[in-house]
């Protein structure tokens, strides 16, 4: 199944080497991480060393080599969020979910990451769950947000 998907992505970009990053982005979007076998297939079919693909996969923040949760949580630590207490919000999520930043819960429901500015500083501090933005978050709102996605 992964093999067919990878072929589809390779064809979409006509196996053009300058589109490697875009290919990885499509993969990441599809699987919420970059499966090892998919990277090996890209390397094989494009004749690009796996080390080069892995260097891209680990350099850019958008990529993950481990599966992310069904609801990826991104806590903004941009400047505006920082001065309005974003770090405390992040730590509250860590405690509530029982995981550290960068990790995924064992039921694969949530993953927690810090991001640098989501560009809605007017609503600081901001948390993004999936595609949904939550603004003016307080520590007491954190359990409420988590509960919303547990259903």
């Amino acid at each position, binding site marked *: 199944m992964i093999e067919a998907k990878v072929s589809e992505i390779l064809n979409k970009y006509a196996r053009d080497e300058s589109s490697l990053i875009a290919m990885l982005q499509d993969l990441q979007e599809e699987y919420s991480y970059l499966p090892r076998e998919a990277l090996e297939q890209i390397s094989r079919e494009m004749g690009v060393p796996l080390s080069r693909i892995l260097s*891209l996969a680990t*350099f850019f*923040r958008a990529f993950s080599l481990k599966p992310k949760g069904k609801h990826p949580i991104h806590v903004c630590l941009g400047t505006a969020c920082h001065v309005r207490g974003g770090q405390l919000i992040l*730590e509250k999520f860590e405690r509530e979910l029982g995981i550290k930043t960068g990790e995924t819960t064992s039921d694969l429901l949530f993953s927690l990451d810090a991001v*640098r500015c989501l*560009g*809605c500083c*007017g609503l600081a501090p901001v948390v993004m769950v999936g595609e949904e933005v939550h603004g003016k978050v*307080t520590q*007491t709102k954190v359990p409420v947000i988590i509960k919303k996605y547990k259903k």
Partner: protein
Amino acid sequence: MAVEKEKLYRIHLMVCAGTACVSNRAFEIKEALEKEIKRQGLENEVKVVTTGCNGFCERGPLMVVQPGNIFYQMLTVKEIPYLVEEHFLKGRPVKKLMYQPPEEKTPIPVLSEIQFFKKQVLVALRNRGLIDPEKIEDYIAQDGYKSLVKALTQMTPEEIIHEVTISGLRGRGGAGFPTGLKWQLVRNAPSPDGEKYIVCNGDEGDPGAYMDRSILEADPHTVIEGMLIGAKAIGATKGFIYVRNEYPLAVKRILIAIDQARDYGLLGHDILGTGFNFDIRVVRGAGAFVCGEETALIASIEGRLGEPRPRPPYPAEKGLWGKPTCINNVETWANIPVIIDRGGKWFASIGTPTSKGTKVFSLVGKINNTGLVEVPMGITLREIIYDIGGGIPGGKKFKAVQTGGPSGGCIPAEKIDLPIDYESLTEAGSMMGSGGMVVMDEDTCMVDVARYFLSFTQDESCGKCTPCREGTKAMLDILTRITEGKGTEEDLSLLEELAYTVKETSLCGLGKTAPNPVLTTLRYFRDEYITHIRDKKCPAHVCRQLNVYTIDPQICLEKGHGCDVCRRNCASEAIIGAKGEAHKIDQSKCIKCGVCYEVCNFGAVKVD
């Protein structure tokens, strides 16, 4: 192409659908409006239009009624039926949904009368709130692509470059390089096969800045038009728009705009029958701050690691795939159509002798009117913070403003009358940067701010050159020690020495500017560093390792009747006391998360 005849409406409701308003449920407001308009039989008279960011993000969700320019704010679905009936059926605007400045008794109905908008001069953001960004017809109706027609049919490349040169426009992405000069350099640069490229840098990585996002979301065609004009001027046939991956809405809207422009024959082959060819590809960033640096950005478009390389050669000579490449930022491109339309002289009449035109700032942090503002260069900080921004919330004292993101610095309150232009900001130790303006009040710790920015640049350092990779790490270690109360006074001189070394010897702009937040805070707020070191105290109570939380038993009992809310919310079971009794914090268990301070409604929790 046949354009369908648009139906005419009596009233247009311009609902803001920028990212901030969308997260404030703007689409629910839009649905409720449409439902109610239909229910009240007004669907042939009133039309709901979704626009890009209006700028006054603090007050979302927002809507402007046209004609009349009536500004409604903080809308809720519940109030929509009443609003539709009163205003659009009975013709009585609803006062309680209008903006009322704090400390004033009457609301202000008209948008242009509101202080936040009054002092703004819109050039790059001229179409904000006026058009549906997903409709090219709306852009054309506002004279969109008129400048392109002029540039393609009436101007030579030299005339275009001349107009941009006399406008005095300088790069809005940070460094402030004169745009006309850059175009001339790219035009003059020889290309082995004649190919040259245009790049729009939308890798807006500075935390606290979101004007590029807003322009791409609210008015994508202005960027396309600007790039087309630039392409004609320098002789390019291919363009790239590099957008941050974190901006899905901006990516979506620019892709729609490109498709529409192709359908209208404004992109592609033989544009407007003039024989001119140009097309644009969108490249999504993959989350690396350093890719905002032009040589790293080029590497990333080519599908390589986003690492910078030494300059020269500059991209103007050797850019994408080794060919001459013109890179300008989103806001710079957005200014181009206006300069061609109204003339470089007109643009140069705004601003100061060295900084012409306007600049968009995102005004965020500890400020009443958070949002996006476009102001003439040379305006003072005071006007931005107090007249437009409405001052500091909660009657707190203004302490500093941070401009230029992680590359910039902190400007202290005593410099509040500083005029905002490239030179005076640099002189104050900061920089224009992309236009982030983070306001800080007495509750902000400047040592923590320096540590914050350093942790950012340290984290984002690509690791290629040693001064940036190791130097920022060493500086961060010192700053962290100080915020934990473990610093020494010798640390400060070491910090300064490291800062100057990193600044002078780093390979690219990231490292060269990374020490700025540290240097400016050391320059203006040295006493705060000293307090952290000598007294082991953080005057703003931000550095948590230095905080001690206590509960005033008297207030807890008398005002709060031992309400127990703090104990139930405590993360580490550090609060002792039963409901109805005065509560107490066990310091050995306290993790200093401050949640008790946040939830106490009686002010019984103290922090020292």
